[in-house]
């Protein structure tokens, strides 16, 4: 996931409210050579050129490739097969297995992560000593790379010598072969994701909490609402746009999950466990393209992932629109 920190919707909102930079000024003064300036194109050109070359063009070309049968060794060529790749994908049990795994790992990772982040942000919003220390330490996992985090967690979740199993045994429970089971391996992978992102999301929530006007809480207090009720009826509703934003971003991240399942077994295999029990869509795509050399199939999987993301973003947009309409 990147450092993108705003939904397009909120961003556009910002664009419309803040766009005319010198709105209240008399028009005569605005028409200087600086504010009406063709140089603007030159200044934004590097962004658009680099983006077009390295993101937009490849993005569209992926769709083109997905309509061909082609391999890594035959990069330029390939035969036109129309929608065959998509048909094959929908009939492939590997695709459905990967889609199911992506969904369950996504839920296992996203739901607890965002709930915990919300709670943490609430705690961090109190007057606390050493608040810089707590905030910084909670962001440490975010600074740790996927590779490093996964290798450490794979060690912690190890069957024979892993610390977690040692602990389980110490309290009288059975050892778990984390990597072998479907649920256990998915829980372990979700734990890595949760560990890395909870603190980050908590800070996003905290930032939003700090811009809630204090009057709202005072009014709630006068009405006799206790802390918990204030949290439920003031904090959560005020944070709704931010929560929606983190849900969308985390889900997009979950759909693309790749590094954690790749490195979880420690040996970088693309099969996602002995029976594919934690093979995600991202991993499947990598396997199709770079292990099996079916570039056309990999492109099809990539586009399937994009469709899933579009559906999720669409659902979220609809929900938020319905909500705002209901409030009016």
């Amino acid at each position, binding site marked *: 996931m990147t450092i993108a920190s705003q939904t397009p919707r*909120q961003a556009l909102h910002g664009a419309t409210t803040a766009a005319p930079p*010198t709105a209240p000024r008399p028009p005569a003064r605005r028409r200087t050579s600086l504010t009406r300036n063709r140089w603007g194109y030159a200044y934004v050109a590097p962004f658009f050129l680099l983006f077009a070359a390295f993101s937009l063009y*490849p993005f569209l070309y992926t769709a083109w490739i997905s309509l061909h049968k082609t391999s890594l060794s035959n990069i330029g060529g390939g035969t036109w097969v129309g929608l065959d790749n998509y048909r094959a994908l929908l009939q492939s049990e590997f695709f459905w297995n990967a889609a199911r795994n992506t969904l369950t790992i996504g839920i296992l990772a996203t739901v607890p992560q965002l709930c915990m982040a919300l709670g943490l942000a609430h705690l961090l919003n109190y007057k606390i000593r050493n608040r810089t220390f707590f905030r910084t330490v909670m962001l440490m996992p975010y600074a740790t790379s996927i590779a490093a985090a996964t290798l*450490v967690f794979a060690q912690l979740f190890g069957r024979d010598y892993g610390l977690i199993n*040692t602990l389980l045994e110490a309290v009288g429970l059975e050892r778990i072969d984390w990597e072998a089971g479907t649920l256990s391996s998915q829980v372990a992978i979700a734990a890595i994701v949760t560990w890395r992102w909870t603190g980050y999301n908590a800070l996003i929530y905290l930032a939003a909490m700090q811009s809630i006007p204090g009057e709202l809480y005072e009014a709630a207090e006068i009405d006799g609402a206790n802390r918990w009720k204030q949290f439920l009826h003031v904090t959560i509703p005020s944070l709704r746009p931010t929560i929606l934003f983190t849900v969308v971003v985390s889900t997009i991240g979950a759909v693309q999950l790749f590094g954690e399942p790749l490195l979880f077994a420690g040996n970088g295999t693309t099969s996602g466990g002995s029976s594919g029990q934690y093979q995600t869509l991202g991993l499947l795509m990598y396997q199709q393209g770079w292990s099996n050399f079916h570039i056309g199939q990999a492109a099809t999987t990539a586009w399937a992932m994009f469709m899933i*993301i579009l559906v999720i973003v669409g659902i979220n947009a609809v929900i938020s629109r319905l909500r705002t309409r209901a409030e009016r």
Partner: protein
Amino acid sequence: MTIALPGTQTTSVQPVDRPVTRKGGKGTRAGKAGPVTYTLLTLTALVSIFPLYWTLVAGSHTNADIAATPPPFLPNASLFTNFKAALEQAPIGKAILNSVLVSGAITVGTVFFCTLAGFAFAKLAFKGRGLLLALVIGTMMVPTQLSVIPLFMMIADLQWVNQLQAVIFPTLVSAFGVFFMRQYLISSLPNELLEAGRVDGASTFRIFWSIVVPVARPAMAVLAMLTFLTAWNEFFWPLIALTNANPTVQVALAGLGSGYVPQQSVIMAGTLLGTLPVLIVFTILGKQIVGGIMQGAVKG
């Protein structure tokens, strides 16, 4: 909207008689924290830090030591033996150098181009500006994995496979960065300053260099830190574009676990080596990075 943009509703409705102490979060409405809060926060801090600490512990013992019950809980002197073994198994030294070069180049490029574009979007009026800005924001939605296959073909055509520029060029700009700089410059760069520069006869680029950049410096620093962290931790694309002959840290770490007889303590030592640089940076600049993320969240 609770995510207030600079100069919009929430900041202006504060009654005059109440001290405005919410800035920075010190005097928020929330009361003092009780022991429960401290306990929960301390627990979270421990959970956040423990895996990193365990890397140090496990990386500084032998395999047999780690497997013992109870396991060791303090670092040991074998650390340097394991470091040596890790450096023999994977080119971690070279990888760190590569990562510094790659992340450094990406950071310099991103900060420069994004400040340039952010300035144009904030202060220069040109036809189609609104549409172009909407496009920038729309680009945030395109996931990397959608572009990877043609990107790989492209760098193969350019004979860039396994070369650092293959990792640098595709990440040289960021839509988030453009938007971030725009929001900052709208609120903190007075038009009078720009007009004064113009009256003095400065060219637009001269104005950018001598007036905009100094004003933008704090935001540039924040963007630089976030970009560096993200670039350092980038995994998917470097794994495809590079091999273990010329890896970044992440690629080298991925290769570390792939031996036939994985030696956990050596893997942990290598992981520690690859993570140390960013942890050091984080220890020094953590407060600013935290501030940057919170600022990014509010301002966009």
